């Protein structure tokens, strides 16, 4: 369709946008929980499902989630990877991330997995494999952000 021509020029542009996303009531309560060292989920008594991240409405029954529950600090790794190519503004790679389903919760939540030796990916992935158990570790200084906690392998 086209043959690149050496003399073609470009017009350059840098787009900078800033946003201040309002967290709203549900995420706001979750974030307040993080400050207190708790992971808070919402529950729908009609479906019996407990959601993390918390939802206002049960997405199966379309009823309002009618209670908050504190999730336990341990669970099972459902999916995991070691991110080797990095992103600007995030932790320097390699980093391990996982979706962990905390005990009794019906959905898994993502976060970094700390405390692993990532010099050997295969060995690290054995500890991180789906089915292995992980625990929540809170930072000492918390700011009401998802990075207030991370996971640690228990096996």
């Amino acid at each position: 369709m086209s043959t690149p021509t050496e003399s073609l020029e470009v017009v350059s542009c840098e787009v900078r946008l800033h946003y201040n996303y309002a967290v709203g009531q549900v995420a706001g309560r979750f974030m307040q929980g993080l400050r207190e060292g708790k992971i808070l989920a919402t529950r729908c008594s009609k479906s019996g499902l407990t959601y993390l991240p918390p939802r206002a409405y049960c997405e199966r029954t379309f009823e309002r989630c009618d209670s908050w529950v504190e999730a336990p600090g341990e669970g099972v790794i459902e999916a995991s990877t070691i991110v080797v190519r990095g992103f600007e503004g995030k932790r320097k790679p390699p980093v391990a991330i996982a979706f962990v389903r905390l005990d009794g919760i019906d959905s898994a939540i993502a976060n970094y997995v700390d405390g692993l030796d990532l010099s050997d990916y295969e060995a690290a992935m054995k500890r991180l494999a789906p089915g292995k158990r992980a625990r929540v570790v809170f930072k000492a200084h918390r700011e009401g952000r998802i990075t207030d906690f991370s996971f640690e392998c228990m096996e």
Partner: protein
Amino acid sequence: MTQTVAVLGAYQSDFRTHIPDHTFVEQAQLAAVGALADAGMAGDDIDAFVFSLAPTHFMGVADADRWAIDHIFAAGKPIFRVHTGGATGGSAVQAGYTLVRSGMFRSVMIVGAERIAETPDAQEVLNLIFDVFYERDMPLSTNTTVGLWTTRYLHRFGQTQEDLARIAVRARRNAMKNPHAHLKGEITVADVMASKVIAYPLKLFDICPRSSGSAAMILGNMEMAKRYCSRPAFINGAAGVTDTYWIGDRLSPTSKFEFVDLGPAAPAARACYARAGISDPTRQIQVAELYDPYTVMYPVQLEQMGFCAPGTALRLDKEGFWDMDGAVAVNPSGGTLCTNPIAVSGLVRAIDAANQVMGRAGAMQVAGVRNAVSTAVGGIAQFFNCTVFGAEPYWAGGHA
């Protein structure tokens, strides 16, 4: 009155990383001109347009469908923009199909372009699709979430990275017969295994390139088909299913759909086959053009679309089931692993499938194709759609 829908013509550009001597809208124009020429039609023969346009952060002009209207000869006509992430091109074909099938328009052009090389910030762009409160602080992107998917798939079925590597080897070999493909050539399983790790166990050669290029397809009713096309392909089945935004909701015993299974694929395929009169896909469908930007998505779709049982696609692959002369020729084009112009990838899959039915697939042509299926997947496996193209029109529940 409900209408039979036929493919009358199509165009796809050659795909590559960068196309410096045309702008985005000029690319779309080349596709519109090319499809009209292929169908032997003029701009006035098109009643309505569907513009296939995924996230515009890559090409850097918001809502670029506006910019393209004159270039695709749509001014004065209705136009609909369609966007379902990576599934956009497949959704656009289905939107066009619906517009003709409803009897509202005699003919519809589905057209779009993609341009990805003008920003170096692709993974950052893809990170923007994640939830800002719970997920965006993590390095989540299409690559890293498919890393998670691949870990879970291999673990569940006890398969290896080498099993997946063979998919990439075959894709690039098939693509050698596709003049439009971006990546092609002979590579080995060892080459795939030695390619650099992106998100373990995902390596560079398990991942599609980002491609620039454009494509268009013209659909028409039976009256237009008789006038313009001696051997049309008929859209006999179309279906799409969506899933929850939350990946974590797809990783639990109580999940509605399981992440590893690409949950929407099985119900969409069932609905699509029922409309197209397909009861045994492996016997009745000769070609599948699957949307597979990552190696893991190839076996999962074959398994969930009824071509084989869960966990068996990679084993059957070893025995040649999905070769050009196998039970079903899967991705004779090399598929999305070799060429991924995001906004139009699903459209290209549909064009490649329709061309097989129309006998226009050139060196990729499989003999005796009566039915071909194309798929598209988007939004981290949140959108799935599939379309069956047949050599004869089929009406579930009786002929028109």
